[in-house]
């Protein structure tokens, strides 16, 4: 064990320098050609394939796998990108075990689905390595669409709009584009600057301008955009973080998991990134797992994930939960944060109340326990950063119809900030893409927006 692991409090440099590299290496190293052929041969090329129906972007999975199997990875990539221009990132971050791979008939047959995500990465990696562009822009329409947020939803919308011949101006609050792909995903899922390479790949179609460090509500208003552009797509995600509603949650050592993840992704040298010796992560989703696992990988001695309900209710996939356990994270269920314990300034632990479902309602049993901690991460969900600025909301998100249309004419929304679908990269891509089609129809003079 590296000596740094035992450093008290929140400290950097817990590991030997080379350990950081191996700890944060690609979680699923890419398939080589032979591995891809062997895996592709396992696909049954199902009729009306269940995997394809389970994919939020409806990628023709049997077709792209057959293209891989026949030595045509470029054809496979085109099949993928036709439906999902961020197919490269989705291949890395999709919870495939809950989507295509869960639906794979081989999952039913033998509990071993075809590795669809890995195959998708194989094909998209080859195409992106060669810089192959599969789409040409239509004749310019003279229209310009504003896209707020250069994350998965915004990029997918922008690409499809560009294909249709519209120009796109994107605004992103952060210095880099990519949204959660760049700032919100565990490092071992997207290595080697892939998120930025993907932004470059998507925007290489042309007609897309990105203005970074430009936030809605701070640097411009929705009215500004409506006045200046032919249409507006909002895909800025969820900028706010839910509070624990526990005592002392402003104490030093309590942080938002999303900020920790972002900081980690942007860190030039992980050895300089401080992490607690004992870390508690509150939450049961992917963000909680990403924060917990990465805390462990940074050298935290004890990492505990605490979730107020049971294993089955966790939104983190089975795979993610297993990954956390395999990396040494302890997952504790049925307890809710009550009080952050401090020595007056810094966190020393967290007091948790045991919970139970009584008549379908989550209640605290009255018993409590404490877990010692130097650092507490909050990962219990995110919220819209603003009040919506005049848009109708539903459940705290921008209300949209099935085409992504908001309550305001000429304004669409998609991705995490809008209603509908799970908050997944692939869902955001589907929503952005489909909103772009709707915007295009609107701009072409079809039905109103």
């Amino acid at each position, binding site marked *: 064990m590296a000596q740094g692991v035992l450093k008290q409090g929140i400290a950097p440099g817990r590991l030997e320098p080379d350990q950081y590299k191996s700890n944060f290496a690609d979680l699923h190293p890419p398939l080589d050609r*032979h591995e891809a*052929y*062997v895996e592709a*041969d*396992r696909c*049954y*090329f*199902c*009729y*009306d*394939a*269940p995997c394809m129906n389970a994919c939020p972007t409806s990628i023709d999975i049997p077709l792209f796998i057959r293209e891989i199997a026949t030595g045509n990875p470029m054809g496979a990539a085109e099949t993928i990108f036709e439906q999902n221009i961020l197919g490269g990132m989705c291949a890395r971050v999709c919870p495939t075990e809950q989507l295509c791979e869960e639906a794979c*008939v*081989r999952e*039913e*047959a033998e509990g071993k689905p075809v590795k669809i995500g890995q195959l998708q990465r194989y094909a998209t990696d080859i195409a992106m390595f060669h810089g192959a562009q599969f789409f040409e822009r239509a004749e310019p329409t003279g229209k310009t669409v504003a896209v707020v947020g250069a994350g998965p939803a915004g990029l997918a919308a922008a690409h499809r709009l560009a294909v249709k011949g519209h120009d796109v101006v994107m605004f992103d609050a952060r210095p880099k584009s990519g949204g959660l792909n760049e700032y919100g995903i565990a490092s071992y899922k997207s290595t080697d600057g892939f998120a930025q390479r993907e932004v470059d790949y998507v925007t290489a179609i042309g007609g897309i301008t990105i203005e970074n460090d430009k936030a809605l509500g701070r640097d411009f208003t929705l009215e500004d955009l409506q006045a200046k552009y032919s249409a507006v797509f909002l895909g800025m995600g969820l900028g706010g973080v839910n509070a624990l509603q526990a005592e002392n949650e402003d104490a030093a050592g309590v942080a938002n998991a999303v900020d920790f993840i972002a900081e980690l992704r942007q860190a030039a040298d992980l050895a300089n990134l401080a992490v607690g010796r004992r870390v508690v992560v509150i939450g049961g989703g992917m963000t909680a797992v990403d924060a917990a696992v990465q805390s462990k990988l940074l050298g935290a001695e004890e990492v505990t994930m605490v979730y107020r309900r049971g294993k089955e209710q966790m939104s983190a996939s089975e795979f993610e939960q297993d990954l956390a356990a395999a990396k040494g994270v302890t997952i504790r269920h049925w307890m809710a944060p009550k009080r952050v314990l401090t020595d007056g300034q810094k966190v020393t632990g967290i007091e948790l109340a045991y919970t139970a479902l009584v008549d379908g309602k989550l209640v605290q049993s009255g018993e409590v326990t404490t877990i010692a901690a130097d650092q507490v991460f909050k990962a219990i969900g995110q919220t819209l950063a603003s009040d919506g600025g005049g848009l109708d909301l539903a459940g705290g998100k921008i209300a949209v119809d099935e085409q992504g249309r908001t309550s305001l004419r000429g304004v669409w929304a998609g991705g995490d900030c809008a209603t509908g679908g799970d908050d997944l990269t692939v869902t955001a891509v589907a929503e952005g893409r489909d909103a772009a089609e709707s915007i295009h129809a609107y701009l072409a003079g079809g039905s109103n927006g």
Partner: protein
Amino acid sequence: MADLRNNFVGIKSPNPFWLASAPPTDKAYNVERAFKAGWGGVVWKTLGEEGPPVVNVNGPRYGAIFGADRRLLGLNNIELITDRPLQVNLQEMKQVKMNWPDRALIASIMVPCEEEAWKAILPLVEETGADGIELNFGCPHGMSERGMGAAVGQVPEYIEMVVRWCKQYTRMPVITKLTPNITDIRKPARAAKAGGTDAVSLINTINSIVSVDLDDFAPVPTVAGKGTHGGYCGPAVKPIALNMVAEIARDPETHGLPISGIGGITTWRDAAEFIALGSGNVQVCTAAMTYGFKIVEEMISGLSNWMDEKGHKDLDAITGRAVRNVTDWQYLDLEYIAKAKIDQDLCIKCGRCHIACEDTSHQAISKEKDGKRYFEVMNDECVGCNLCVNVCPVDDCITMEALPVGTLDERTGRVVTGKYANWTSHPNNPMARPAVEPAE
């Protein structure tokens, strides 16, 4: 324990698994290894006449086609007969036969189609103590351009002539190896029999180009930018070989002529099938070239266990047992009605049966039930073709079920009579005549 001892035209071997004349039997080193591994016999790689031996290409000699995971399904070769001096081969054969008296050692021979050539080589071979000779009338590449191999095997008159010379000039049993590169395999078999052959062996390799290099636009294997057709073998050729073996076995003119079965035999099961269709023993090459000699252990064990399980005491009990069930299409029972049945517990819902039937056959498998993905055979459309069984990825999930006598065939509206009736007497047959049953 089943008795696997084999007596093929008087040549005895401890089991019916011989290595075919090919690269694995080119020299003492390999053959010794084969015998150590347990092979019952070998047919030594084909000897040519005395004098400077043939030469082989110095580039690739093989090409292949693959299944999933690069499983070799078919192999093609352009190698010629032995390229070692005759005397070296003869000396080694003699020594190996002395070392392994209980194993069969057969000499494959290919010399020009001249009486003197055969007359000259036969005594030399006989002197080695070999148990028999196999006449290579089969190789389709290279040697055939020089009037040997398949060039002889494609002319029944030549076959008969050479067999006759061999029977005249040696006491050794003569096995005539046939080429499949011919329209009707019965003709060369009949010719060999007419010449007095003791047995035939088949098939030799099939003329083939396994693939084309799409960068060089040249056949594979490519030698300095050019390719030539080779001889195809391996699992892919088994069905062709089985049919040819069966054709000879059931031809009244050659029925009972001993057959050494060759062609894609890879497992004990393949061997058992060849034996059931009339092969007195089998010869193996590609499987050994793919996996090494050790596979014979699986073959011996598998054949023996299957025979024990079925109560077959020895090879005679199974040899030719399937021949009487090979018939002409016209004698198939048209009153036999079968329908596909899908076992819903085994079905993994891939839908391949549905799309195969829907797109390419009889629209007899539905895809949905109560709004859910569900594949079911429609008996009123199913003609019992078996395509769904063949495309289903799950063992035994789809089976063909014969309709019992007295039940209604929903497709035709006719009740199953159970009364044998074939095309020869069918009303739609303009040549119909009173019912004829196939000869036993």
